[in-house]
């Protein structure tokens, strides 16, 4: 735990001193623009209505609230991956990966420190986003508070589990830009953030089931706009927990090999 706390504190100091605005603007702006896009389309094109198939597939007619939940969750996912998965490659680029590998600190708390920082800083950024949502006059219904909290927790765990393996991939390949953006865009398309997954073709739906973020988003949408209660959400939570466990196991097993590969390539 001291490792996690020290990492989170170091990251906070570094961000505050070197890039105070870059990350905050980079998080709030894309989510706010996606919400504004949906808002304008909803009023100017839909005339304040949405098609019947949306209600049938998502279980709600509150399109804007659905988008708010989805766009916020998506930006949160992106932010978390940017911090947690890029932690190791950042060390590699700055030339400190070797020092980290021989330090007597375990990798899991180190990565958790980044995630802890990312979660806390994102919460602050989302208050700003809340102001945008309030200014547009969108209200987001909450059908199950414990469901929403568990859903948020499930999303954090799911994204962390994905990030461990992705971080290993990045240092093994020595490349972050292509892999991170491809992951963002694939997640955004198949995991059901801003539209119901039933719109997608069959193979894409099956592929989405392999990602832990998909079930986490089902829980989040269900507990906000979906009108579901906690017992109804439990099956999807269980799926998410199983997948998260599997990804974490694979990621942590693979990470030492990726580190070895990265070290051999450098020296």
């Amino acid at each position, binding site marked *: 735990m001291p490792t996690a706390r020290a990492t989170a504190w170091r990251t906070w100091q570094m961000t505050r001193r070197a*890039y105070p*605005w*870059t990350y905050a*603007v*980079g998080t709030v*702006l*894309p989510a706010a*623009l*996606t919400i*504004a*896009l*949906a808002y*304008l*389309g*909803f*009023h*100017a*094109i*839909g*005339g304040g*209505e*949405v*098609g*019947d*198939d*949306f209600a049938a597939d998502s279980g709600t007619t509150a*399109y804007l609230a659905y*988008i708010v939940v989805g766009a916020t969750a998506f930006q949160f996912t992106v932010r978390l991956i940017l911090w947690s998965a890029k932690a190791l490659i950042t060390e590699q680029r700055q030339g400190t990966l070797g020092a980290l590998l021989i330090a007597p600190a375990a990798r899991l708390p180190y990565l958790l420190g980044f995630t802890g920082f990312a979660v806390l800083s994102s919460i602050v950024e989302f208050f700003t986003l809340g102001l945008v949502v309030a200014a547009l006059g969108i209200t987001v219904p909450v059908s199950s508070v414990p469901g929403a909290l568990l859903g948020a927790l499930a999303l954090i765990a799911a994204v962390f589990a994905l990030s461990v393996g992705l971080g290993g991939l990045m240092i093994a390949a020595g490349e972050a*830009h*292509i892999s991170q*953006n*491809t992951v963002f*865009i*694939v997640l*955004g*398309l198949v995991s059901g953030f*801003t*539209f119901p997954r039933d*719109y*997608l073709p069959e193979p894409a739906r099956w592929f989405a089931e392999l990602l832990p973020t998909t079930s986490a988003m089902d829980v989040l949408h269900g507990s906000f706009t979906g009108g579901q209660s906690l017992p109804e959400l439990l099956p999807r939570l269980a799926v998410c927990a199983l997948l998260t466990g599997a990804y974490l196991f694979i990621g942590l097993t693979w990470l030492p090999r990726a580190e070895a590969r990265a070290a051999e390539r450098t020296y």
Partner: protein
Amino acid sequence: MNHLRHALRVFAAETLKQHRRLFGQPLVVFSMLVWPVLQLATTYYTLRPVATASRAAENWPLAADPERLLAFLATGTLAYAFFFSLVQSAWHLSFERATGTLELLFLSPAGRLTLMIANGAGALLQNAWLLTCFTVAALTGFGTLSVAAWWMYGIVLLALLVPAVAWGAFLNSLLVFSRDSAFLYTILDEPLWFVSGVRLPHFALPAAVQVVGAVFPLTGSLLAVRGALLEHRTVSDLAPTLLGLGALSALLLAAASLILRVGEARARRTGALSLA
């Protein structure tokens, strides 16, 4: 005449440099083909609930047909990719600051504005051909194209190319003289699609956003491209848009030239590569 020949040689050299650096890179394939196509699908599905609403067809006739909606968004993606490849190129040019080769560029007798234009043009030709092929194939395949004459394709290409290169020269000049280029990159990436009507028709945007959008040449390019490809417009229909685009491009090039002069004069005096 001699002057022009010199400028052309600088242009060719800088374009060749960009070509060698970018061609065959996996980044180009991803950022110009894989990501835009997946992003297009996400945007289409996100807007579908709105377009299938019962009153959508009377507000926006195009929305009633899913294929035409997709074609509308695809032209937006195409034009956006053109302009975005220039944002990316300007971002890469700012690496010359970090590696120290920018001072060498300024020591050389090459025309500054020519360098900035060539850098953008090189990136553009590298990046955009991929997506153009894809979009033309997709649009012809859907059968949603409605073009007045064959040479309108030439007009479309010019309406994309000329403003994009002017925009690139302007961005390059701006980013050469700024330290936190990643910040400008973020600022220029996301709002660009929003204010220019890449994913929504112009009438859906509030007046204030439309005014801001008029500053960006992508707005005019999109009007021309969509008018020519999807709405069967002729050159005389599009004349005001095309003239506006020409004027805006000239203005951007003049601004780029001014920034370069001011920035270089300041760099000579203070040794700092910044505008303020």
